[in-house]
């Protein structure tokens, strides 16, 4: 981990317990949200992501626990707090009015004068690409347009923290892609702190600074993106996140559809994708795509990525053995027990790890993560 200045804590949750009809829905002892960062909540459906989100937004009274905003405990009802936040749900939840009036709602609620509203709203309509729809009835919008309106309505109040509860999961992939791009840009421009829940890891990987994995009403793991992806705390997290190697990188060379990205440890990973030199990327490698060999340079391999490294840890994982290799960056591989014995792999032993350029899943990010 690079030594960065620890950002300020904006929102903090302590000793949270939410029970519904005698069943514990959420049980979280501690959660912190840092100023200016995006925290992604990922986890399977029904894990409690939405409940956690609503509780953090002060919209749901927990059975026990306290939430602190800027160091101050949120009072019951949380009215004052709610004036500092905004929320976007999976459904756009627009009012039966024009797009303009929808976006203006939060400002009207705050008693802003008509003149100020007329000055404030158009900028946000433009930002979310719905300026031309200002006078359209919200009932006549496409799914994407409606969710853009909902986002504009949230951001126009200049919230200090935005809650995004699976905001794009009801949209078709191209629309989702376009909206994720815009949201990413606006989050960066406005330095708004955000909590976004999703069950789509790609979305989380693109937006998040940190990831919290919520499983069964508990936070199974929380930390920086690469850490959670590369070092799942347990089997559940691993099986949920799937990708175990996530390498933040920067594109250094591009040639005919393929490119090389500089990653941690002074290494370069080759991958396939439409990128420009200097782009920030995440290179994701699934553990079963990684081949290990006891020879420092494996003969006859077509793999473009070959890294010498040392086995750090071997853990049994069902049919497979999960092997952490330190190659200057950390790489996770799965091998069968049989292969493990045939290759004579043990902890501390030097190996070469290889994977094909096409096996790298590339995620472009607007904002680079520390290598």
């Amino acid at each position: 981990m690079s030594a960065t200045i620890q950002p300020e804590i904006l929102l903090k949750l302590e000793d949270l317990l939410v029970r519904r009809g005698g069943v514990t829905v959420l049980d979280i002892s501690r959660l912190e949200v840092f100023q200016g960062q995006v925290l992604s909540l990922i986890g399977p459906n029904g894990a409690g992501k939405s409940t956690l989100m609503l509780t953090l937004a002060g919209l749901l009274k927990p059975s026990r626990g306290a939430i602190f905003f800027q160091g101050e405990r949120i009072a019951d009802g949380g009215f004052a707090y709610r004036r500092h936040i905004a929320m976007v749900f999976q459904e756009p939840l627009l009012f039966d009015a024009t797009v303009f009036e929808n976006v203006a709602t939060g400002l009207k609620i705050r008693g802003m004068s008509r003149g100020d509203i007329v000055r404030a709203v158009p900028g946000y309509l433009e930002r979310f690409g719905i300026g031309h729809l200002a006078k359209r009835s919200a009932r006549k919008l496409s799914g994407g347009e409606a969710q853009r309106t909902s986002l504009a309505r949230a951001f126009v109040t200049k919230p200090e923290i935005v809650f995004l509860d699976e905001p794009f999961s009801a949209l078709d992939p191209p629309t989702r892609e376009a909206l994720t791009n815009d949201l990413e840009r606006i989050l960066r421009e406005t330095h708004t702190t955000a909590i976004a829940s999703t069950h789509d890891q790609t979305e989380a990987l693109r937006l998040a600074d940190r990831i919290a994995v919520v499983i069964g009403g508990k936070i199974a793991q929380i930390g920086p993106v690469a850490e959670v992806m590369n070092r799942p705390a347990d089997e559940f997290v691993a099986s949920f996140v799937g990708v175990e190697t996530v390498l933040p990188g920067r594109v250094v060379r591009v040639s005919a559809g393929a490119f090389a990205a500089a990653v941690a440890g002074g290494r370069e990973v080759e991958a396939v994708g439409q990128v420009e030199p200097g782009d920030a990327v995440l290179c994701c490698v699934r553990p079963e795509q990684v081949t290990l060999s006891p020879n420092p340079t494996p003969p006859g391999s077509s793999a473009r990525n070959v890294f010498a490294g040392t086995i750090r840890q071997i853990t049994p994982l069902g049919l497979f053995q999960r092997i952490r290799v330190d190659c200057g960056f950390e790489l996770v591989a799965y091998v069968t027990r049989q292969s493990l014995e045939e290759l004579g792999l043990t902890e501390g032993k030097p190996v070469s790890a290889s994977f094909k350029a096409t096996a790298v899943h590339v995620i472009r990010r607007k904002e680079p993560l520390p290598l």
Partner: protein
Amino acid sequence: MDLIIEGVKQALYLLFTLDREVIGITLLSLQISGTATLISLFIGITAGTLVALTRFPGRQLVVSLINTGMGLPPVVVGLFVTIFLWRNGPFGFLEILYTPAAIILAQAVIATPIVTGITLAAIQHLPANLRLQILALGATRAQMIWILVKEARLPLLAAVMAGFGGVISEVGASIMVGGNIKGYSRVLTTATVMETGRGNFDIAIALSVILMLLAFCINAILTQIQQRERPR
């Protein structure tokens, strides 16, 4: 057949010559039923919203009672309002039996459950997260309720029309508590009954035509608004 044709002719004559008695009865009906509807809207929208937005023990029973109340027979209301308003009854001191105020009261009792029931259904029919969305926009509880009611305005309009349509065409309670007093508590329906009894079918038909015109206008306005507002 002659009777009907003559009746309709006479009815049109009374209408187009703005017969003072017929116009007076019509205006009084509108005033009484309009006031009763407004009272029922005030109570019904408040109560309906409250029941829709809160959870309390016995709520299911309250909802059942409201739904039953939507079909309250006017004569039953008329009977009980009469008994309560008798000079020597529990509310005799009000001295409003056989006054327009008594009709307003009875009609409000009839219309309030209708408005409450429709409001309840309308608010409950809104998306579950809409309340949370409004609160997340920084709304106070009062602002939230106001926005919800505004969102439900189309079904609430239906509540207005259902309430008004129900009371203006109601006769049982009006005649019992109002007494059908000429120029005072005689409304379209009670006058129609009386004129039929007197054999003045022409006036009875004229009054019926007005009643039907009112019903038609109400529905026309309602349909117009709903068609304009509901492109979905």
